[in-house]
């Protein structure tokens, strides 16, 4: 915890969204959310929950950073995350029970999503609350944007719809629906292609070395 100058907000936002994007750059947190990317609506709900939980727990961890004993900080962080996840879970159950059923255990699995722990450990534990909140929020957004792109690809090619509405070309008779895209293997292939695409762009851009979550 060396005292370091706080990064400007713009840099935090750009890092979270692109240069230090949790998915490409750090390969974090793909576990718990990939499974819900076959339908855009589910993904959107999951992404909103994840972004909120990440931002709020980073903020809380940052507020408590001076009072948290160092050797039990992991446990404290986990409990903070679990606290917010429980709130999200209860809200979903109360106001949108069918979505809660669709998402199944994946809302609860936000707790073990590595992005959360990664951001808390890498940023929130040594920075003031404001920037930590921003960092968590934009890392969540960066993550969500990729997942939404994956979900859009999968839903469009696999079912010919976008948010449940038929898309002109893909739902027509000239498009054979790629059933494999809505099944688990489709998620792996789409994510791999996304990573390929973004990494290829990076090598051209020559991004300066960044410090990742882990």
């Amino acid at each position, binding site marked *: 915890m060396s005292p370091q100058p706080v990064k400007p907000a713009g840099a935090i936002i750009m890092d979270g969204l692109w240069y230090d994007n949790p998915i490409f750059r750090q*390969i*974090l*947190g*793909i*576990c*718990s959310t*990939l*499974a819900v990317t076959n339908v855009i609506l589910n993904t959107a709900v999951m992404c909103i929950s994840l972004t909120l939980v990440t931002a709020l727990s980073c903020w809380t961890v940052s507020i408590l950073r001076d009072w948290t004993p160092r050797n039990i900080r992991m*446990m404290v962080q*986990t*409990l903070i995350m*679990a*606290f917010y*996840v*429980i709130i999200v*879970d*209860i809200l979903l159950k109360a106001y949108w029970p069918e979505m809660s059923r669709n998402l*199944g*255990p994946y809302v*609860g*699995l936000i*707790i*073990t*999503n*590595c992005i959360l*722990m990664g951001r808390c450990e890498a940023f929130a534990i040594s920075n003031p609350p404001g920037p930590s909140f921003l960092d968590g929020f934009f890392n969540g957004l960066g993550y969500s944007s990729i997942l939404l792109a994956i979900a859009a690809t999968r839903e469009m090619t696999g079912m010919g719809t976008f948010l449940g509405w038929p898309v002109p070309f893909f739902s027509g008779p000239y498009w054979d629906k790629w059933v*494999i895209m809505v*099944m*688990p*293997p*489709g*998620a*792996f*292939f789409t*994510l*791999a292609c996304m*990573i*390929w*695409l*973004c*990494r*290829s762009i*990076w*090598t051209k851009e020559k991004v300066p070395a960044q410090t990742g979550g882990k």
Partner: protein
Amino acid sequence: MDNINAELWLMVVTLFASVFTNNILLTTFLGMCSFVSVSREVKTAAGLGAAVVFVMTLTTVLNWLAYYYILVPLHLEFFRFILFIIIIAAFVQFVEMVIDRYSPKLYMALGIFLPLITVNCAILGAALFMVIRQYSFIVTIGYGFGAGLGWMMAILAMAGIRQRLTEARVPRGLRGPGITLIIAGMMALAFVGFTGVLK
């Protein structure tokens, strides 16, 4: 007696289902992080896999007991995330200490993997699936073991393939995680073939 036989049969079916048709890694994407990062060598993959099988079997059973004997009577079901995480973390810590004390050799083999497991989503995921699918106690034992075994099988296969890949010429942007995900996709494709073998 018939009842128990039926339960045992269901347990065996669940065990096979969770290894093949419902593989926790290839169909529900749990435990991906360590799957991508620890599958470079067969030896380490085997160590991590063994640790996952062991921890997953015992923690799902412990979590079942805690959920149905503590949370359900108290109507505190929404508390399960915290309880499961604490049980898993405490159990892993405990096992680490016991192994360290009684079998330093095993500790050398498994020791470094145990802390990693606490944050492995597959362990928590198995416990949550167990609650959502309302498994009975006996079926839970089969499920925990099967899910762990399925995960171990997948990571072993992946490590074997990746070892051969070191000489291959992979496009630059695809190196590392990219190619791993493509292989995982193909493995998942193969496992889709098992669908329908069991109900």
